[in-house]
C-alpha cells in the first residue's frame, strides 16, 4: 500500500495509545497514508516516512517534528479546509484531507526555498512584508507580498467554524495540569472532601509519566513502577474520586485576576472561576542551540519518547542524543529498548543539576542493552564510570596535553569516582548497581607531574581523570575513601555476588 512504503512502526509498545486493530486511511497532499485509531496526523505521517511537515515563514526552510506536544509551530497543516492545525495534536479521522501549507509547488520541492540562499537580501529583522519605494510598483508588490506573507489560507467558500459555545463554571479548587504533580494535588485536595476541577491539555491524563519509562520509587502511598504504571494508578484513583471533575484535552490559556481561568475545550470556551488555583503545568524542554538546529529530524528528546511510547513509531535511525542533564539518558535508553539500532550519547561536561550516578547508571544500561541485541541469550555486563569534581565531569583525555590539564584541575581537590554496572540479557536489564568513591588528590609539584606524564605516556589516555590507581598513579593521592574496584571502574564485589546468586559462578 502506498502509505507503507517506508514503514517506521515499531513492535507494539506496552504504553501506546493507538489501537493496532483499527486501521484508517487519510490523504496527505493527495497521497494515501495509513494510520491507526489513536494516531495523530504527525505520528501517522512519521510512521509513513514523511519527515518534512511544513516550511518556515520567511526563508522556507524545511520543518519537521520538533516538540510533538502541540507547543511549537513546526507541524502546522491544513486539515479539511481548516488552516494552521497542529499535526502533532490532531487525531486522525477516516478520509481526512490533509494539505501542506506555505510551500509551492510541494513540501519537498518548494521554489520559494531559494529565499534561504538569499538570506543576505532579507536578514533577520528585515521586515519583508511592507513596501515603500518606488511607489508605482506598489500595486504589483502588494500582490506578490500578499502571497508570501501570512501562513495558511482560508477557504472562503467553506462553512466557517463560528459556533464556539461559552460556558461558565465554578469550582473550589482548579488544578492546571494532569501530570504527576497535578494528579497528586487533585487527590490531596479531594481527600479533604473539597471539590476539584482538574484540567489537562493532552488527550490522556498522566503527563510525562506516559512516556517516561524510567523506574520510579520512593513515592509515598504508591507502589514502585515505571512511569506509565504509576500514571495508571494515579489516574484510576482520580477517576474514582467523587470530588474530582476532569477536563481532558482542554487548554487553560489564561489566568486572570481573582482566579478566572479561560479554557479552550474543543469548540467550547469555558470560563472557570475557582477559589484557589494550583498550577502544575510542568516544564518544557528547550532545544539546543547550534547551527542548523531547525532541520527535520532534529527533535526534542520528549518528542522522540512520545513517538516511541505513545504511537509506536521510531523517531529515526541512526540517532544522536545530546543532553545536559540526566533526562536525556532515559531517552537514549528508550531508543535502545524500542529495538532500534544505534544510539550515541553525547554528554555535556557540566553536570548542571544532573546526577552523575544516574548518568553512569544509564550509560551502563545503554552499553549492556546495545550489546545484548547482538548476542541473544548471552548475559551481558555493561559498566560506566564518571569522575565528578564539584559538578564538573571528566572523561578520558583525548591527548597528553588534555591529561596534563585534567590532572592540574584535580590537583589538591576532592573528587568522586562513580562507577555503575548493569547486567542484561535479551533486551532486559536484570541487575544494576552503582557506587561512589572519594579521592583527595595531593598538591603535587610541576616536576612530579612532568615525570609522571613522561613515564605513563599514552597509557593515561584510557582513564577518566588521567591516572591509574593500580600503577604509579597512586602517588597522586593524599587520601582515598571507598571501594578499590569502584575506583578502577567496576564495582566488582557486588557484581560477583550477583553472578553467584545467578549460579553463573561457583558460590
Amino acid at each position: 500500500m502506498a502509505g507503507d512504503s517506508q514503514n517506521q512502526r515499531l513492535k507494539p509498545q506496552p504504553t501506546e495509545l493507538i489501537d493496532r486493530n483499527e486501521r484508517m486511511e487519510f490523504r496527505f497532499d493527495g497521497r494515501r497514508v495509513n494510520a491507526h485509531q489513536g494516531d495523530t496526523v504527525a505520528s501517522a505521517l512519521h510512521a509513513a516516512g514523511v519527515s518534512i511537515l511544513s516550511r518556515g515563514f520567511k526563508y522556507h526552510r524545511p520543518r519537521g517534528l520538533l516538540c510533538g506536544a502541540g507547543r511549537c509551530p513546526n507541524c502546522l497543516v491544513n486539515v479539511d479546509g481548516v488552516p494552521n492545525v497542529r499535526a502533532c495534536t490532531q487525531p486522525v479521522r477516516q478520509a481526512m484531507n490533509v494539505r501542506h501549507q506555505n510551500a509551492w509547488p510541494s513540501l519537498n520541492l518548494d521554489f520559494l526555498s531559494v529565499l534561504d540562499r538569499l538570506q543576505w537580501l532579507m536578514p533577520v529583522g528585515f521586515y519583508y512584508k511592507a513596501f515603500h519605494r518606488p511607489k508605482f510598483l506598489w500595486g504589483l508588490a502588494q500582490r506578490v507580498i500578499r502571497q508570501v506573507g501570512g501562513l495558511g489560507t482560508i477557504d472562503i467558500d467553506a462553512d466557517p467554524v463560528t459556533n464556539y459555545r461559552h460556558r461558565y463554571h465554578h469550582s473550589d479548587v482548579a488544578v492546571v495540569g494532569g501530570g504527576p504533580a497535578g494528579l497528586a494535588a487533585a487527590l490531596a485536595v479531594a481527600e479533604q472532601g473539597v471539590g476539584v476541577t482538574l484540567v489537562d491539555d493532552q488527550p490522556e491524563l498522566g503527563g510525562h509519566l506516559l512516556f517516561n519509562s524510567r523506574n520510579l520509587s520512593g513515592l509515598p502511598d504508591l507502589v514502585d513502577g515505571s512511569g506509565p504504571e504509576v500514571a495508571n494508578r494515579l489516574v484510576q484513583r482520580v477517576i474514582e474520586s467523587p470530588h474530582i471533575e476532569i477536563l481532558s484535552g482542554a487548554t487553560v490559556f489564561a489566568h486572570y485576576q481573582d482566579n478566572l481561568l479561560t479554557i479552550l475545550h474543543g469548540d467550547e470556551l469555558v470560563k472557570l472561576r475557582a477559589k484557589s488555583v494550583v498550577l502544575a503545568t510542568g516544564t518544557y524542554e528547550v532545544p539546543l542551540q547550534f547551527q542548523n538546529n531547525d532541520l527535520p529530524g532534529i527533535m526534542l528528546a520528549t518528542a522522540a519518547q512520545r513517538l516511541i511510547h505513545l504511537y509506536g513509531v521510531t523517531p529515526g535511525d541512526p540517532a544522536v542524543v545530546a543532553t545536559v542533564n540526566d533526562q536525556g539518558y532515559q531517552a537514549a535508553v528508550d531508543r535502545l529498548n524500542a529495538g532500534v539500532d544505534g544510539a550515541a550519547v553525547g554528554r555535556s561536561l557540566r553536570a548542571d543539576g544532573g546526577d552523575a550516578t544516574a548518568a553512569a547508571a544509564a550509560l551502563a544500561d545503554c552499553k549492556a542493552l546495545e550489546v545484548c541485541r547482538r548476542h541473544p541469550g548471552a548475559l551481558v555486563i555493561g559498566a560506566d564510570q564518571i569522575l565528578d569534581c564539584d559538578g564538573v565531569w571528566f572523561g578520558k583525555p583525548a591527548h597528553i596535553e588534555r591529561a596534563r590539564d585534567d590532572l592540574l584541575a584535580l590537583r589538591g581537590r576532592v573528587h568522586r569516582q562513580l562507577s555503575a554496572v548493569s547486567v542484561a540479557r535479551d533486551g532486559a536489564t536484570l541487575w544494576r548497581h552503582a557506587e561512589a568513591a572519594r579521592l583527595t588528590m595531593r598538591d603535587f609539584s610541576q616536576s612530579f607531574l612532568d615525570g609522571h606524564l613522561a613515564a605513563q605516556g599514552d597509557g593515561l589516555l584510557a582513564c577518566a581523570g588521567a591516572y591509574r590507581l593500580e600503577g604509579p598513579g597512586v602517588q597522586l593521592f593524599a587520601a582515598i575513601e571507598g571501594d578499590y574496584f569502584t575506583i578502577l571502574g567496576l564495582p566488582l564485589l557486588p557484581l560477583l555476588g550477583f553472578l553467584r546468586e545467578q549460579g553463573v559462578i561457583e558460590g
Partner: protein
Amino acid sequence: MAFLLNCPNCGERNVHEFHFGGEATSRPTPNSTPDDWISYFYNRDNVAGVQREWWNHRYGCRKWFFALRDTVSNQIQETFWP
C-alpha cells in the same frame, strides 16, 4: 479582566455585572459659588491611590454603593452602603 466585586447586597460578582459611577464627589450647597459648581461638574481629584467611588449593580440588584479601590493596583479594599 473580569475580577470580582463584592456587592453589599448580592455578594461577590463578576465586575461586568456592574456599572462604574465615577469618583465620589461632594455636592455643592445652595450657597456655593459658580466656581464650586464648575468644579463639581468638571474637576476630579483623580488620585493615584485609594479612592472612594460609586458602583451600580446594573445587571443584578441595581443598587448603588461605594467601593474603596486603589487606582494603582486596581485592588478593591472595601465595599459599603452610602
